[in-house]
């Protein structure tokens, strides 16, 4: 078994992890072979599924833990953490 890579990040964009950010997240997660999971409080989501991520109810200021297992796990967690830190690369209207 490969090692589990994990990282904790806080959501910075005002809308939180709603539909559009979730889509961007999943698109990026799907570039990796690793199994990716996202944790928020007691909830766990599949990092490659929009519906699952929406179910986390993660708003601005919430801390998420991203874990990845697989060959490209280290890269996956750093890319996804970077994405959250960059407010999902989405332009904010307000």
């Amino acid at each position, binding site marked *: 078994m490969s090692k589990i890579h994990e990282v904790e990040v806080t959501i910075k964009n005002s809308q939180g992890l709603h539909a559009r950010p979730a889509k961007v997240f999943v698109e990026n997660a*799907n570039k990796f072979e690793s199994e990716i999971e996202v944790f928020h409080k007691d*909830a766990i*989501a599949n990092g490659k599924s*929009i*519906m699952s991520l*929406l*179910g986390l109810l993660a708003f601005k200021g919430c801390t998420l833990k991203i874990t990845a297992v697989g060959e490209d796990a280290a890269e996956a967690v750093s890319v996804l953490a970077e994405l959250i830190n960059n407010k999902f690369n989405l332009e904010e209207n307000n």
Partner: protein
Amino acid sequence: MSNFTIKQLLENAGTYLDLKIVKYPEGTWKNLSNSRYFTAGLLLTGIESNRVNNGIVIFGSTEISFLFNLSEEKRKEALENLFEMEPACSIVTKQLKIPKCLKTISTQTKTTLLTTSRNTSEFIDKLSSILEEYTREVTRLHGVLLDVFGIGVLLKGKSGIGKSEIALDLISRGHSLVADDSVEIHKHHPDVLEGRGTPVVKHHMEIRGLGIISIPRLFGPASVRDKKKIELIINLEKWESEEEYERLGLDDHSTEILGLSVPLLILPVRPGKTMATIIEVAARDRILKL
């Protein structure tokens, strides 16, 4: 759940069980990590059990009249023996008169003392269902849970294999959706696994090319269910020509969830194969084997 306390029991089920506080230790609420309950019974005669620790001890009319029939000294001794086993709380049923020394010893040992108006058998019945609910094991799996001909079928497989599309096909054939993507699985005693969806995104599906759709709005209220017993797991795999798939159907395969064994089928997915039909047949076959 390991951190289920008496406080939570009171808050969540206090009215249902009609519990009232007689004595409670200030500041601390003991953890009901044990999640067992005992009638005081023979424990009052000096029988010892290490399983009482952090459990609930129930005093019914037999125990209370037994205590009143003892001399004051013997009564104190009997209760001291019992409380040495460190129960998390004791409950007197039917609002029986509580012996003074039971109150004293509860204060001394910092053990919660509760009373209820319900009679013992009724109370035990309700309490055990509540304890089961709060302490049962829960896990979460990725997959789609459907009700196919009354059989709870959990579709698993890597993302992109087409779980949701196959599920949609089954829904349009009149079967119902329980949960898409993330299935919460509760273990009910002794051997039932029940699957549910995540409350927020319940009964919505993401279909590539279409976006997020609401199943009950498109297919009607009968197309969804809130929970379903899981009776069959189907693992969808990419067709590999070297891999040997089941040809005779004589060997039963299974997988474990929360320590319980569930029948497992491995189905290879190939373009042009109507997976929905195969899954319907798998469910029919499961009914035959029940």
